[in-house]
Every structure is written in C-alpha cells, then in structure tokens.
C-alpha cells in the first residue's frame, strides 16, 4: 500500500501531463470535426464579445479609408437613382432604324461629386463653410451642396482648390421648396440665428399644413434637383400677413457635425440661366 502511494507521488505529474495532453488532443479533434460545433460555440460565446469590442477599437483607426469608400459608393448610388433626365430625340438611332417614328434618349441633367468641410461657422448671422475642393476639381458657382441628411447650401465662391458654401443658415439664402402632402410651393429662409430652425414662407393660409410634414426642394431654381429633403414642419402660425402662414421647420442637416458634403452640378445651368436672363430683359 505504501509503495502504491509512493508511486503515485512520484508519477503524479506524469498522470497530469497525460491527462492534459489527451484533453488538448480531444479539443483539437473536436475543433477539426465538421459536425460537432458545441465546444467551439461554447468558447466563442465567451471570447466573442471581448473580440468584438477589441475589433471595434481597431476599426476606429480604419474609419478614414472606409469612409472614403462609402462616399464613393454614395456618389455612384446618387447617379444611379437620380431620375432627373432630359428626354431628347436620339438622332443616330432614328436615322439608323429608318422608320418614321423618332427614338428618344435620356440625357443626364445633374452630376454629383463630394467634398469635405474644412471650416464652418454656425453661430453667426452670416454663416459660411469652406470645402476642400475648388475649380481644379470642377467645382463651380451655384452648385448645390447636400449633407448626408439633406440640403445644406449653395456654392457662392470658388478658388483653385477651395470653395465657399453659403449654408441655409444665412439671411440671403433662399431655397424654393414644396411642402407635402399639401403640395404647396414656398421658399425656405433663415432668420432666427438658430442653426436648427428655418422658416418656410409664401405658403397660402388656406393650405392644410400639419406638424411633421416634410419639406422638399421643388427643382424650380436650376440649382437643386427636385425632391431633396430640407426638413420637417415644427410649428404653424397664422402670421401678421393675413394671406400667408408662418411655418417653422426643423432643418434636416446637422450643421454641428457636418463633414462630408455632396455637390450637385446642373449640367444645363448656363443654358437655363441665359433663357431666364432673356425673360427678365423683356
């Protein structure tokens, strides 16, 4: 009996070693087999959350390149889903088909690009933003500026590498808009020095406007495509001017954390503007 105990004392570590090695071999076999996931699942349920939070931290350092890729993807999507086309006669196809009927083709009306805001003010009366693209990148005056949430402003001045943007938060900013579902056209202006709130004016008093109604661009200005989100109705008051309502709207764009903006170019703007100029002259 004593001998046995002695033997166990001596060989104890060998037994432990054997047990541990066999255990690891069993684990290895379990992890390699394709129909028994219980062990790996059990381990994963403990390790997973830790790894997830760790990867979140690592991911932060890679946000820059990923953000650029997403912006590119957004531009592509804007081009794809933009339904603002001019319908024109396709002369080549009409000629080739040698039929009496004319064929039409679609000509794109707007093109999209993006830039990053490098300077901005939101707390003044005359606010402005500067973006990091200029005439070298094809930015021109009167291009529309969109934030990821909706309309942000208009390009007012362009240098070679930078451009100045006049946001909605500017007393001279005027954006023609339509409020749905009442379908009344008006103009969005900014008065209160509050970067979250603007006014929608020139809506007739008889129209039925409810709080929460959406305000979109109506595409009359040649700057903004039709149907871009501006904000939602916050307050409706019968104003001093008896024929119009005073409507306060919550702006969709978060000017406090605006960084990436999309710029919209109206490819036919010069042509349309010359027509309008003629109209004024007469």
């Amino acid at each position, binding site marked *: 009996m004593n001998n046995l105990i002695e033997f166990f004392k001596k060989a104890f570590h060998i037994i432990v070693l054997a047990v*541990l090695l066999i255990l690891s071999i069993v684990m290895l076999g379990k992890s390699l087999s394709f129909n028994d996931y219980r062990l790996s699942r059990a381990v994963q349920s403990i390790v997973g959350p830790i790894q997830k939070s*760790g990867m979140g931290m690592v991911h932060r350092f890679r946000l820059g390149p990923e953000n650029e890729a997403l912006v590119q993807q957004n531009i592509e999507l804007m081009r794809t889903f933009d339904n603002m086309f001019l319908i024109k006669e396709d002369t080549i196809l009409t000629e080739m088909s040698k039929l009496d009927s004319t064929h039409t083709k679609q000509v794109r009306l707007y093109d999209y690009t993006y830039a990053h805001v490098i300077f901005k003010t939101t707390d003044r009366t005359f606010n402005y933003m500067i973006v990091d693209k200029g005439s070298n990148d094809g930015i021109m005056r009167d291009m529309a500026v969109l934030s990821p949430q909706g309309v942000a402003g208009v390009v007012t001045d362009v240098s070679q590498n930078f451009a100045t943007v006049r946001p909605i938060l500017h007393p001279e900013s005027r954006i023609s808009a339509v409020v749905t579902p009442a379908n009344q056209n008006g103009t969005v202006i900014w008065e209160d020095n509050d970067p979250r709130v603007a006014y929608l004016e020139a809506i007739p008093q008889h129209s039925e406007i409810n709080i929460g109604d959406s305000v979109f661009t109506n595409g009359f200005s040649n700057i903004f495509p039709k149907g871009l989100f501006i904000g939602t109705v916050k307050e409706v008051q019968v104003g001093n001017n008896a024929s119009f309502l005073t409507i306060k709207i919550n702006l969709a764009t978060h000017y406090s954390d605006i960084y990436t903006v999309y710029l919209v170019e109206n490819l036919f703007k010069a042509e349309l503007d010359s027509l309008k100029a003629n109209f004024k002259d007469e």
Partner: protein
Amino acid sequence: MNNVLSNLLRFLLLLVAQITICQHICLFGYMTPALFLLALFLLPLELPLSLQYIIGFATGFVVDAFAHTLGVSTFACTLMMFLRPYIVRMLNGTNNNKFENIDRPEPGVKDFRWILLYTLILTSIYQISAVLLETMTVRNFGHTLLVIIGNIVFSVVVILCIEFIFHPRTKNEA
C-alpha cells in the same frame, strides 16, 4: 507572495499583448510572433511539475480561444512545459534533479548565450508542434517549414527584445 503576483501580472500583460497585437501581425504573410511564451519561460523552475503543466495548458487554451485554433497551442504549450526542465538541465550541463531558487531562467542570472539557446530551443518545440498540428498535413511541406522557421525567428527576436528591455537592472549589478 510577491513573486506570485509579479508572475500573474506578467502572464496577464503578455497574454493581452499576444491577443490584441501579436495575433494580428502577419509579417510577409506568414510570420506571427508568440510573445506569450515569455511568460512561460520566466516561470520559476522550482514550481511543482504538475502545476507547471496546468499553467501551460491554461495559457495555451486562452491563446487558442482567441485564435480559433482550439487544442493547437494548448498541446504545444503543455508539451513545452514538460520538456522545459530537461532543456534547462541540458544547458546547465548537470544532472541535478532539484532546482534551486537561484537557478532562475532570467537575464542577469544566466548569461546571454544561455538565454538565447533556452529561448530558441523552447520556441522551436512550441512552433514545430503548433504549426504541424495546425496544418495537419504533409502536403506543401516546404511552405510549412518556411512558416515554422519564420515563426521561430520572429518569436525569438521579439521575446528576447521584450525580455532584455524589461528585465530589472538591479539584478545585473548584484
């Protein structure tokens, strides 16, 4: 007691470093350092053998859990802990079965050549068994060999750097 605490702290730090940093390094596409081995290397030799095996097993298991290679590091670490006393005896050139407290496998106690050989041999044992268990095939053995050698070299360099940067100066003077 102080010794136990410093060892635990070392294990914790090296495991966190392994899991968060070293595991994600893939130099030239295949070289990944096994920094956590340093914690096992610096374990006191006079600990009961069975406890050493269990520590090796547990360390390997934690590394495996985060690397999704269950059993690989666990086996390799346990094997390495089993062979460690024999390697030390071989390097010391004695057949003494009892390790004294003075016989620590640390810089300052041992000279650089001893530490280098000790690290190299034990890392080789770990990497050879781990890589072979992980690939589980003899196909494309040239590449497997490359991975083993690359891992050994990278691990040894990283381990020795960390070891010599962080070892307490006072021991050297004494």
